[in-house]
């Protein structure tokens, strides 16, 4: 019984972190029909920057997201203005190619600058736990989970309650209508892409504490994140949250009661099953066009 409870708690905690990492991916797809395969590379890039900041200034890695989030917002904005904008209006598969190129570029740059070695930020709490009776709550995961919920809530508020969020949603639903009332399509898309990239600020910071990483680690993450948003319904923020929690649980329970071999396969099995039986994903029908409602 303790084993089961522990497994469920671990699964939910890791699911929260997965949700945070997937939120930027689903946001960018929902608004712009862009599948940003480079999101995983953004995470690793942020993890690397976080590690560097932690190593050289001693700043807490998770707090460092105060620095990395605006940094990624800026980087996302520049990337959109200079690169992504060129494929506006093309099919989503073009965006896969382009952002995959971006991911390879980021990986290559990290290889040259940071070296092909594993890094991990290890603040004092990285391998410690809160204990409640026999149950362990790993501190880094708890902090990660809380940060994830905070970021998701902020994202939700930004998209539904601010002018910027309304502009983003308006231009995704009806670009010409939005343009007529003064919403610039390109500048809004740049904001949306920047917002999506900025979520990797917190995600990457947490990643640097949770797992050792090296430049090519992004392949593991992007494939997992795609599984999550396919399950949740591509473009749906609540879908990403539910998908992430379900898959976090499924991974942990499979590892505990099934076989370790199947635990990481769960993500891909889910992609197959969703495509076969419910191609729009769990939250896909209602929320296809609108990311936050």
């Amino acid at each position, binding site marked *: 019984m303790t084993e089961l409870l522990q497994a469920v708690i*671990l699964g939910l905690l890791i699911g929260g972190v997965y949700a945070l990492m997937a939120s930027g991916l689903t946001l960018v797809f929902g608004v712009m029909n862009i599948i940003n395969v480079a999101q995983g590379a953004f995470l690793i890039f942020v993890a690397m920057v976080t590690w560097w900041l932690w190593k050289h200034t001693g700043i807490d890695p998770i707090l460092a997201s105060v620095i990395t989030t605006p940094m990624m917002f800026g980087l996302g904005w520049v990337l959109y203005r200079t690169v992504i904008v060129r494929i506006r209006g093309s099919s989503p598969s073009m965006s896969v190619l382009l952002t995959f190129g971006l991911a390879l570029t980021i990986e290559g740059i990290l290889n040259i600058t940071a070296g092909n070695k594993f890094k991990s930020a290890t603040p004092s709490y990285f391998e410690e736990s809160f204990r409640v009776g026999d149950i362990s709550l790993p501190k880094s995961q708890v902090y990660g989970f809380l940060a994830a919920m905070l970021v998701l809530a902020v994202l939700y508020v930004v998209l539904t309650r601010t002018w910027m969020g309304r502009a983003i949603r308006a231009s995704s639903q009806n670009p010409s209508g939005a343009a007529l009332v003064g919403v610039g399509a390109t500048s809004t898309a740049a904001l949306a892409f920047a917002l999506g990239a900025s979520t990797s600020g917190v995600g990457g910071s947490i990643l640097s504490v949770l797992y*050792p990483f090296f430049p*090519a680690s992004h392949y*593991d993450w992007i494939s997992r994140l795609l599984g999550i948003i396919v399950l949740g319904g591509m473009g749906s923020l609540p879908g990403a949250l539910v998908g992430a929690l379900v898959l976090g649980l499924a991974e942990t329970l499979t590892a505990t009661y099934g076989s370790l071999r199947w635990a990481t396969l769960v993500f891909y099995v889910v992609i197959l099953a969703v495509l076969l039986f419910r191609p729009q994903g769990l939250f896909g029908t209602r929320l296809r066009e609108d990311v936050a409602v």
Partner: protein
Amino acid sequence: MTDQMSHPAPPQPPRLRTTWRAGRRLALLGTATCAALLLAACGGGSAPGSSGGGGDSAAAKDTPITIGISLPLTGDFSQPGGEAKRGYQVWADMVNADGGVLGRQVKLKIVDDASNQDTVVADYTKLMTQDKVDLVLGTFSSLLNFPASAVAEKNGYVFVEPAGGAPNMFSRGFEYLFFAQPATAPHQADVFVDYVKSLPADKRPQTAAYPTQDDPFTRPVIESMQKQLEALGVKTVFSQVYPADTTNFQSIANTLKNKKPDLIAQGAVFEDGVGLVRSLKQLGYTPKALFQTSAPSNAGQYSDGVGAANTEGVFYTVSWNEQAKTPLNPEFVAAYGKAYDAALPAEDAADAFAAAQVLQKAVEATKGVDQDKIKDWLHANEVQTILGPLSWSAKGEPQGDFILAQWQSGKVQVVGPADAATSETIVYPKPPWS
């Protein structure tokens, strides 16, 4: 690329794994164009072998002994291939400074095979049949040594390889092949089993868990250890294989916590080893002994990853250690540091150095470069190297032992076999996590 055949325990996360992952991920993304893009990107690194001119043929007393080597200096194995090159180079420089071999200077003719099986075959064929080098030395990884050793066998060249311990290397009945490491994968944990045997029966671990990554260099080690320990009466309570992209080790730790094994022996490449140690601490379970295959040998990266205090008592086995008290080892470490910015040699460099030592001893003992005499001598004799004494079965399999190492007070100590040990103390049982 098949992962069936490459090299054990690369000291740094090598590029080859990166590339497998890239391939797998892309398949999953299901975008064929992406795969094409990746191939294009990966192909960019290859460069043709640089062959210098010239046939150094007949062996006069004042002409150098030419040794032909093809190495993966670019491509997937470029990182370990580069280390092997350094190892060979340091050996040649040391030998030449000391008057050469049989009074003749040594000249290395190293070409690049770009980590490609076809190129390595072409390289060695050219070295043996056109350049007519006096001797050859092996390349890096089983993948490349497999076809390269066949070229050597056909041309009657002794082939001492610094890497390439996959079991199928030795099932072909080759006579000219010699693997210059102390043991093939299934025997790499024997020295740890010997240690367990040396404990009084009531002190031995009674139960054991064997999680291992699905990797050609960790699985045979762990599976063979499991068999040997079961024969000793150690009960197996957990034995599972996990895929390379596993990141979540908390669930494994949770399972282990409930099974309470005395010994946890993990087939860990790197980040999985770090992940399990962290998770065991997070879940609050300390086994009496913790063994991991190669993760703990990546000295700095491992202690950074798990936290220096958490390394205490972790066992691993390795072909070489910079502190091991084997003949010429300190000189090798010093010469390597002098040549390469005070860096510590990687295991791959040490293995290459040892392969060259093997060939050198045989040439000196047979007083010439007659391949058949060298081959017969190596089959009949034991050779002292920086890895310890090496000797071979008729198939070229080494008959020795790996080194048993243990993290103690934040440092690596060699604790077995006794004649190589740098510390008398062995930390057992493992103290609880700090």
